[in-house]
């Protein structure tokens, strides 16, 4: 008990950093992301990924009217061309925000990847969501014929974990991530149809 108390800051730091996953990769059939960044466009131009799967938000979901949304399908296609991405290499995937449902998202995505002959994909995600992404990919996407890598969308994210427990905004975000993974086990134990 005394040992735990004396090393509490180290333990808390590790609880935070556990949420970050960053997997190295050489090449993949596709990159999956919610927006195209310079980093992703560079991967495409360097030939390290053949296609880009862009998940865009459905216009019909409940969302702040004046807050800039992620691009619509046509906006996304227009922007992709400016980044030097050919239309045929861009796959726009419609996702709905609102109720977060990783399971239905990955099941739909799996179908899309198979239909487009994609056997390996790199998933870009906010740094604190990468563990959850890896967790659900392992359970709902990975399998014969599909290999996945999870990469943080931010580069210098480690400093965000410094004394994260003193920031109530980060407390909530990180707790959410752990609870979303606990949801899976909770429902598995109860043989719930949700998982």
């Amino acid at each position, binding site marked *: 008990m005394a040992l735990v108390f004396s090393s509490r800051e180290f333990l808390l730091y590790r609880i935070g950093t556990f949420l970050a996953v960053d997997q190295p990769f050489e090449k993949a059939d596709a990159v999956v992301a919610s927006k195209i960044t310079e980093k992703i466009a560079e991967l495409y131009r360097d030939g390290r990924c053949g296609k880009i799967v862009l998940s865009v938000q459905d216009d019909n979901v*409940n969302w702040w*009217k004046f*807050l800039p949304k992620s691009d619509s399908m046509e906006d996304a296609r227009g922007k992709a061309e400016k980044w030097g991405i050919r239309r045929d290499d861009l796959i726009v995937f419609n996702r709905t925000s*609102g*109720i977060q449902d990783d399971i239905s998202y990955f099941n739909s995505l799996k179908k899309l990847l198979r239909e487009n002959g994609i056997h390996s994909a790199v998933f870009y995600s906010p740094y604190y969501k990468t563990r959850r992404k890896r967790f659900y990919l392992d359970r709902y996407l990975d399998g014969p014929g599909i290999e996945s890598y999870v990469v943080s969308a931010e580069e210098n994210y480690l400093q965000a974990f410094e004394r994260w427990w003193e920031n109530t905004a980060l407390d909530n975000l990180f*707790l959410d991530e752990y*609870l*979303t993974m606990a949801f899976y086990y909770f429902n598995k134990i109860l*043989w719930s149809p949700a998982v």
Partner: protein
Amino acid sequence: MRDFKLGMLARSVGKKIILLFLAYLFVLGTHRFWLPWFGEILIVETPLKKADIVVVSTGSYVRFLHAVDLLKKGYSGRLLLLGDDRLPADPQGKNLTHYAREEAIGEGIDEKNIFVSHSTGTQGDARAARAIADSHGYKSAIVVSDGYNMRRIAMIFGKVFHGSPVELIFEHGDWEYGEYFPPERWWQSPYTFSYVVKEWIKLPIDFYFLRGFEPA
């Protein structure tokens, strides 16, 4: 002698395993009857009526939508928007209260009747609401939040407004927007599961920290 002791230990462990397994079967067979309670008990409602001001945190869009809807239906003419300024919602650094204010004005609410306050949590929300109510002499406030948040909101607002003449009305409207799963299956949505469990974590913590609280 040793064999006898080992045998007793094995029997004891075996009994515990069987008991655990029976307990698990019991939970498996009956959870649909008692697990909803953990969601239902978090929901607090008071009869809706007109009030001097509607108070809402911009932590979720649907609660904001419901708050604006109440104003449009004439339940109040004033709106207090609460949010965390530390969290920018866009690359320009604007936060959700900024966008909420813009949208409220766009929905026809007079900007003179919109108050905005920074707050980092529910206690901060309650204090800000009390400060506004006291300074303007308001006698009633509708506090809008998500269904599962209401038990904690009522506890904290009740404590912070203790001794105040302000009548508090607690209102939620999220079911109609389909944002969360209802109590009978709250654990079957990752979002609702996370929300309910967090409320159960925060309830005793907030209760503990409110023990010695005295309103100013």
